[in-house]
């Protein structure tokens, strides 16, 4: 491909190839402080290709491809090329990862202890992770928690934090000195802007942590906290894992161990301040 960019995020190496310069240039700028894959060998390849050869020039739109593909993934306009790249990188990990059990979750760490926040899109994972980072927590990731089946430890995957709609202004106010990517308006997920994880998050991204608390946040409800039993946590986490089935018995063992060792709570919250206070009280 014409334009190529390689990066290591946590333990995972990516190589992104693109028909266009712009998405790769954006990745290079935003991931400037990140290392390259170990020994120069990427775990996953991502391709951003023109949907038709002439579409590289006329109404350019980006098709996502790579080692692992969803056949019905819709192409995105080139203006959203950075989003396409991020989505494609996530997809490779979600479908291809076999070393770690993947949880769709944000993770923050302080003093070697990690809090894992999991929930569906819109639950507030990314926003809460960014706001906790603003309060001195280490951002380990806003999208995937990587659980090592051998040790039970959570490994970091501090990719760019994907902020949507109202969360963009909230996080900019909390982190005025942070670096952000370009605003991408009107994507299929609404307005999106990426936050670059801070130097601490990048410098420590090889350092795993023990999860001491699992939280199921839900935004837009009256404040309420409820203890979640290991059985319910197991059911919810298997639904929140993209590779649980693929890992077979290793996944079962890792998941049962994780829910037994990690106390869980459901947290409904009306605004971010209430959630942060509740999480810090638990952590």
């Amino acid at each position, binding site marked *: 491909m014409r334009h190529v960019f390689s990066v290591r995020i946590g333990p995972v190496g990516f190589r992104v190839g693109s028909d266009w310069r712009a998405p790769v240039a954006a990745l290079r700028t935003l991931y400037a402080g990140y290392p390259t894959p170990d020994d120069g060998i990427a775990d996953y390849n991502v391709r951003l290709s023109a949907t038709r050869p002439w579409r590289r020039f006329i109404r350019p739109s980006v098709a996502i491809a790579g080692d692992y593909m969803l056949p019905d993934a819709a192409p995105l306009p080139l203006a959203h090329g950075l989003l396409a790249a991020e989505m494609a990188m996530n997809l490779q990990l979600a479908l291809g990862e076999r070393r770690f059990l993947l949880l769709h979750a944000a993770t923050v760490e302080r003093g070697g202890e990690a809090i894992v926040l999991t929930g569906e899109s819109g639950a507030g994972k990314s926003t809460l992770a960014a706001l906790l980072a603003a309060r001195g927590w280490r951002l380990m990731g806003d999208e995937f928690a990587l659980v090592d089946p051998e040790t039970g430890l959570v490994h970091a995957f501090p990719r760019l934090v994907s902020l949507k709609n109202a969360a963009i202004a909230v996080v900019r106010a909390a982190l005025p000195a942070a670096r952000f990517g370009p605003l991408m308006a009107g994507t299929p997920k609404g307005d999106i802007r990426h936050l670059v994880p801070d130097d601490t998050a990048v410098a420590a991204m090889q350092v795993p942590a023990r999860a001491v608390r699992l939280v199921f946040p839900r935004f837009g409800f009256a404040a309420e906290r409820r203890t979640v*039993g*290991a*059985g*319910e*946590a*197991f*059911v919810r986490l*298997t639904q929140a894992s993209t590779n*649980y*089935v693929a890992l*077979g*018995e290793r996944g*079962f*063992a890792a998941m*049962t161990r994780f*829910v*037994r060792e990690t106390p869980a709570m459901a947290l409904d919250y009306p605004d971010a301040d209430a959630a942060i206070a509740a999480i810090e009280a638990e952590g």
Partner: protein
Amino acid sequence: MAATRYRAPVAEGLCVAPLDDLVAIYHRASGLTHIVVAPVPELLAAMAGEWRSIEALAAAFGLADDEHAALIERLDELVAAGLVEAR
């Protein structure tokens, strides 16, 4: 025709993990995970690797005659889930 008999996998065929009020069971033969509650784990243990009749299972759990229908329902659910064989 002989009465239906049921058989569960041998103990090594399942990985059973009690999680508070639920029990997660990994079925090694199929790679499927099942989430169950009592008395399913006890039922599976009572016929692990052995063909058992309704009467034998009912006796093992001290069930009355009018409770056999409920036991058959549970067993049929386990057959449908692939955790128990019937013949």
